[in-house]
């Protein structure tokens, strides 16, 4: 596929790796923000090929992983109602809430449907006017414009039986929170390319200055990631801290103005709880007052939903890069994708699942 195949080329990868090896002189710890990057790094074995000095810390950018338990439980309560068609992206279905997941609700008779675009959920609402259709609007800046668009369109078309259960999160406040944590070891960030394709890079210079860390906008194919690492190492070795765009084929400095306008019209910035981490101020979006009527939390009485987290898993530390997944005693024993203790073990973008799937046994390299 054009723009993908070229960025998998083993010869070019070798050249970038050689340059990284030649540049690095001492240990550096950098965080790839996005779960899609984590997935790609582990799937292609990129971390095995980097110099020992370069440590990749896996960041909190997996939307499935950071959606708070309370929101999952609200989703489960709404999805179980007989009058509701509950639409969601596929990988939310297996995220454990308190005692069950959406698959279980579906198995017990709930009308839970996987959609690939949030606008498909709106179409369901149009076709089934006697049902209440709810879309689980989660994710980072990447999914926010399309989710905002559903509400915009619902109002424009007068589709009143549609609502959005919103749990949107924003990357820059999370970067800020990670840098403020007392145990923080992160010295640089590979910023999430798709997030920046929507939002541009305007939010980053302030973070770069405040925390004196390089932030390099990075893509997802192997060569994209290696180029991001190469530029980050170069900045670190030179003692620089700048915003760089290593994903120019997708990211413009100004982002996508139409998408940003849509977000601004429909959402407003709010505090948001991150699963395993806690509340980060201003780190999310909720529907603005003008669109409150389309907020599933208001439409359905789920204010009473109380959640219970157990203290067994350490995904909070994993999400902040304080430990690697396999440092957790539960990893691969009591916690597997079959029996996830935490959401990081559910999605293949979650660091724990990526480690379990691809690194369960560090085997002797072959060939």
């Amino acid at each position, binding site marked *: 596929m054009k723009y993908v195949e070229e960025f998998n080329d083993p010869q070019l990868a070798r050249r970038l790796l050689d340059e990284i090896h030649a540049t690095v002189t001492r240990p550096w710890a950098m965080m790839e923000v996005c779960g*899609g990057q984590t997935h790609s790094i582990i799937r292609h074995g*990129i971390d095995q*090929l980097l110099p020992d000095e370069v440590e990749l810390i896996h960041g909190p950018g997996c*939307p499935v992983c950071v959606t708070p338990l309370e929101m999952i439980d609200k989703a489960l309560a709404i999805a179980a109602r007989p009058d509701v068609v509950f639409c969601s992206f596929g*990988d939310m279905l297996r995220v454990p809430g308190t005692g069950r997941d959406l698959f279980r609700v579906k*198995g017990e008779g709930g009308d839970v449907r996987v959609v690939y675009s949030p606008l498909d959920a709106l179409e369901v609402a149009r076709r089934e006017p006697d049902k209440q259709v709810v879309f689980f609007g989660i994710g980072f800046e990447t999914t926010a414009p399309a989710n905002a668009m559903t509400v915009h369109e619902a109002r424009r078309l007068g589709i009143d039986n549609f609502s959005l259960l919103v749990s949107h999160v924003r990357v820059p406040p999370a970067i800020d929170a990670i840098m403020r944590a007392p145990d923080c070891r992160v010295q640089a960030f590979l910023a999430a390319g798709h997030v920046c394709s929507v939002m541009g890079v305007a939010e980053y210079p302030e973070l770069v200055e405040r925390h004196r860390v390089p932030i390099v906008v990075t893509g997802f194919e192997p060569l994209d990631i290696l180029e991001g690492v190469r530029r980050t190492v170069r900045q670190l070795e030179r003692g620089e801290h700048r915003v760089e765009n290593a994903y120019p084929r997708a990211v413009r400095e100004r982002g996508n103005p139409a998408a940003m306008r849509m977000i601004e019209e429909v959402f407003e910035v709010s505090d948001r709880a991150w699963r395993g981490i806690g509340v980060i101020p201003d780190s999310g979006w909720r529907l603005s007052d003008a669109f409150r009527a389309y907020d599933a939390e208001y439409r359905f009485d789920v204010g009473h939903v109380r959640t219970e987290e157990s203290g067994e898993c350490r995904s909070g530390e994993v999400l902040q890069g304080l430990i690697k997944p396999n440092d957790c005693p539960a990893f691969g024993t*009591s916690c597997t994708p079959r029996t996830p203790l935490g959401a990081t073990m559910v999605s293949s973008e979650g660091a724990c699942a990526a480690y379990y799937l691809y690194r*369960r046994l560090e085997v002797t390299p*072959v060939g």
Partner: protein
Amino acid sequence: MADTEAVLDPANWSCPLPLRDHPVVVMGHGGGGALSAELTEHLFAAAYGNDTLAALTDSAAVELGGARLAFSTDSYVVRPLFFPGGCIGDLAVNGTVNDLAMSGARAAFLSTAFILEEGVRLEVVGRVAQAMGAAASAAGVTVATGDTKVVETGHGDGIYVNTSGIGLIPAGTDIRPQRATPGDVVIVSGPIGAHGVAVLSVREGLEFGSDVVSDTAPLGGLVAAMLAVTPEVHVLRDPTRGGLATSLCEIAAASGTGVVLTESAVPVPDSVGAACGFLGLDPLYVANEGRLVAFVPPQHADAVLDAMHAHPQGAGATVIGVCVTDHPGMVVARTALGGTRVVDLPLGEQLPRIC
């Protein structure tokens, strides 16, 4: 952005209780992965308890009146009923024919059972039956018996089809996953992933423009051509639900050997790779309906490969890996960049990722 004080208190980081059990059937129980395997092993095999079933092969090898027969059954619930390259009818014939072929057998007789939903147009049922007839004829198998039931509107998905089949296992062959041996060469008969992508491309709510057509095809002829070279083919498997990765994991587990997969050698058509890319699926886990994976002793590998290339269903056959003594029971992929990773059994159905 406001100057914020983030709440990051490690003492309060916590996670939910696990969901260890599914007290009700969930879709993953039919996904061909770990949940399916648990259901079969712990609920069904435990109830029927016998050695033939316990082998858990695509088709059972049974002896009857001095003959060695392969015997298999499969139900088809594909949605939509018609998809690029085929329909539920030819799928139902080829699926069972291929399950039998994975024991080395040429399918001889099939049964077919239809569960029809009230209200389905007879013209649609007729088209499915015609497709089954044509597929049976192409595979050289006789549909010898059948059954029809009708359920009320809303109790079915239009048409469900079950087929069962029997065929003779050629003398001198012993093809089963337990026979994979270190040194065996791993061959796939052609490009992977076309069937799963073709069906997804026309599924309601997901339609996307694609020129991918299903690879549904009978494999009995190809298997016969391979066995004509040598009866010493150790393992055959058709990587349907769960895809190539699942088949390899099952073979590694059953035989207690390791499998090294050379990722760059696995043939994935560009269009399949592109569709998987934007759906967030891994082609290694996407269903095939006209492909097989073979474990062949190294001394026979070239000749078997030649025989495959000479057959229309094996024209794209290629070596994708090797069976090893390292990491017993586990499949390890060597990535194009030179790294390695574990290839695991999927839990249930693949879940399209969010972004």
